[in-house]
């Protein structure tokens, strides 16, 4: 880690840092109170950076090395209930080991922010990226966001605290960073001044839900069929409100930091005049954009839509956008064995989002880049060609595995 990043100045500075380091810096800027760590690659780099910040007196927090991911997430869950701003994270099977804790965290309306260094699930072992870890919690009330560069990682971590801790939301948020491609890749990152961060991010106030002797409440009693459904509905409503809050927060982010992300939910690249588009999440955006620039020189008008927020899912907006194209190809860096049309998670969800729309182009799906395998420019060209065929009315298989050995 470069010393420049460790010393967070009052004024905005620029530093060459990795995605993990960017999130560690965000923890410092957000003045997080309790952080728990447990080793698993590739996310654990964030905790190495956090540990240095704590050791050097740059970050004043309780930094606890837990004895398992289950405890790691349970400790911060309870710390948050007692009023602390918390940070946690994991990767692959580590995230799955914490699954019980991940289940109760949104149900308890805990605004935890976590980083997932996306990693393939065992077995067999692989350190590389796959999105199944983070996606596994998609039904539970976690807000899920994917970023593709270190600057966006830092900014999104600040945004995540602001959204999660908004009293209208009070739901956890996981920031997905592709293992290696983002967790370990350096880029120049603008580090905002703490003054601006303080203007953007108010203190965490748990209000009447604070567990404290001055507010002697009973949290999570046995509700049974009498009340459980109403309580679930409240959590669902919070996720619905998150959609509006995210918009507000991005607007505020732009106002205070002078950096804009456009539509918070998804990024559009070269879509204006596109015939067809590809849709994907995370760092595969990089080879996809390179390939698009190449294809456009050959007259193929391909665009790209990079999903940021997967939960809440901007279904209507996405359907409206994708309805403009002759065909849409979905790239999944995940699998969902036995799912409809044997597609990946993203393809299934995008198709579901498109169904009520009047304009439903063909939507072939691709499974690509599993276990950290590179998504190459030729892979992207191949997928684009298939999508073009679909646009021309030649039926294509709804799921194809790309970049697979023959």
């Amino acid at each position: 880690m470069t010393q420049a990043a460790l010393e967070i100045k009052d004024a905005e500075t620029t530093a060459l840092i990795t995605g993990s380091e960017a999130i560690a810096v965000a923890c410092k800027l957000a003045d997080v109170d309790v952080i728990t760590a447990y080793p698993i690659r590739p996310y654990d780099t964030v905790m190495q950076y956090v540990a240095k910040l704590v050791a050097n007196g740059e970050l004043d927090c309780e930094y606890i090395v837990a004895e398992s991911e289950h405890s790691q997430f349970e400790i911060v869950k309870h710390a948050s209930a007692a009023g602390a701003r918390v940070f946690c994270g994991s990767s692959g099977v580590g995230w799955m080991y914490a699954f019980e804790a991940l289940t109760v965290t949104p149900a308890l309306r805990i605004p935890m922010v976590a980083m997932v260094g996306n990693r393939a699930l065992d077995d067999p072992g692989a350190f590389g990226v796959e999105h199944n870890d983070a996606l596994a919690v998609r039904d539970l009330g976690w807000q899920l966001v994917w970023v593709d560069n270190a600057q966006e990682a830092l900014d999104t971590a600040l945004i995540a605290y602001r959204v999660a801790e908004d009293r209208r939301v009070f739901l956890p948020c996981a920031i997905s960073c592709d293992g290696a491609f983002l967790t370990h890749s350096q880029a120049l990152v603008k580090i905002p001044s703490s003054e601006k961060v303080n203007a953007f991010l108010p203190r965490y106030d748990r209000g009447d839900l604070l567990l404290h002797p001055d507010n002697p409440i009973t949290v999570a009693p046995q509700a049974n069929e009498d009340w459980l459904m109403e309580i679930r509905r409240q959590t669902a409503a919070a996720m619905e409100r998150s959609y509006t809050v995210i918009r507000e927060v991005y607007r505020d982010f732009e106002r205070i930091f002078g950096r804009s992300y456009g539509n918070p939910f998804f990024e559009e690249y070269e879509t204006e005049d596109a015939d067809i588009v590809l849709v994907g999440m995370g760092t595969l955006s990089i080879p996809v954009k390179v390939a698009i620039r190449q294809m456009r020189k050959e007259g193929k008008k391909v665009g790209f839509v990079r999903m940021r927020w997967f939960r809440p899912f901007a279904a209507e907006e996405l359907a409206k956008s994708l309805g403009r194209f002759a065909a849409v190809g979905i790239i999944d860096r995940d699998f969902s064995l036995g799912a409809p049309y044997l597609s990946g998670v993203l393809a299934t969800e995008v198709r579901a989002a498109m169904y009520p729309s009047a304009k439903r182009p063909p939507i072939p799906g691709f499974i690509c880049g599993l276990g950290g395998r590179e998504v190459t420019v030729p892979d992207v060209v191949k997928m684009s060609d298939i999508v073009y065929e679909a646009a021309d009315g030649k039926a294509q298989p709804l799921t194809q595995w790309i970049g697979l050995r023959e």
Partner: protein
Amino acid sequence: MATLTDVQPIPKLDPFKGVKKLPLEEFFTSGHRTCQGCESALVMKMMAKAAGPRTIVLGSTGCMYVANTTYYSTSWVIPWMHTQLGSSGSAALGTSAALKALMRKGKMKNEPINVIAFCGDGGGADMGLSAISATLTHPDYNCLILMYDNESYANTDIQLSGSTPYGAHTTFSPPGKMKRIMHHRWKKNMAGMLAAGHPTCRYIATMCMSYALQGMNCVRKALSIGGPTFIHSLDPCPKGWDYDPYLSHEMGELAVTTGVWPLYEVEEGVVKLYGKTKEIAEGRYKRGQVREYLLKQGRFAHFKDEDIDYFQSKVDEMWEKWLIPGVIPFRKEVEADSPAAR
């Protein structure tokens, strides 16, 4: 004493001097739905009384969650939060860490607040062991983990746990035509194991609420000594042990007087037997036969003499051969074990 750890404010909780000196105020009151004669409910009540109003309680899944906190009729007057079955250690640690950080950073008034996480034997001695162990190694967080041991997974209909006594009939270990004894495992020695394994933990104790004043004073010491602490409470359970509820108090006494359940504290590394256990050890009270205790309970109704003899022999071994009777099960190298070389 020089210390490298950065500690939180600790409450001053002197021992209660006698039953008549107990405060009248209750912090665990009506509203619960435990069985008649449930000793674990009594433990909750006494624990809360001993800790007082400036306390946060975290409770693992189990009878003391399900039966105590029906929505809209909670029995807790002090703040209470559910934690997962294996999470008592993490709940205590996380809550304590939050208080510590917020108080140090000036985000919360700096004052002693007790943190107690309780768990059953299933949640503690089985599933939660790893988290409890981890918490006991963190010297800088004040918290108490109290394991109420009714000797089964009671809430789910009485299944055997690592803390169920040898041979007991549970719904997962029913006596049958081919096998009279389905459960051959000896009960885990939780407090002894935790005391031996966590040398910086300043207070670990066993207790039984049949001796309520002693039990409450264990809680007060555990909360005021500093750092993480652990109490293992043996709680007769009329449903799981299968006896008439009016016998609960007596059942706890019998567990102690027959030597099955030794009462001790390990304070700053020093072992102190207390109460009836101390009297037995000092020869002032004659240890009873386990038969008196076992045969009052339906869960041992299938025992034959040989089973009772085996049980008695194991309890005798604990008193006669353990390095520290009732606490540490190692044996020093003795002549009988290693006859002199010929």
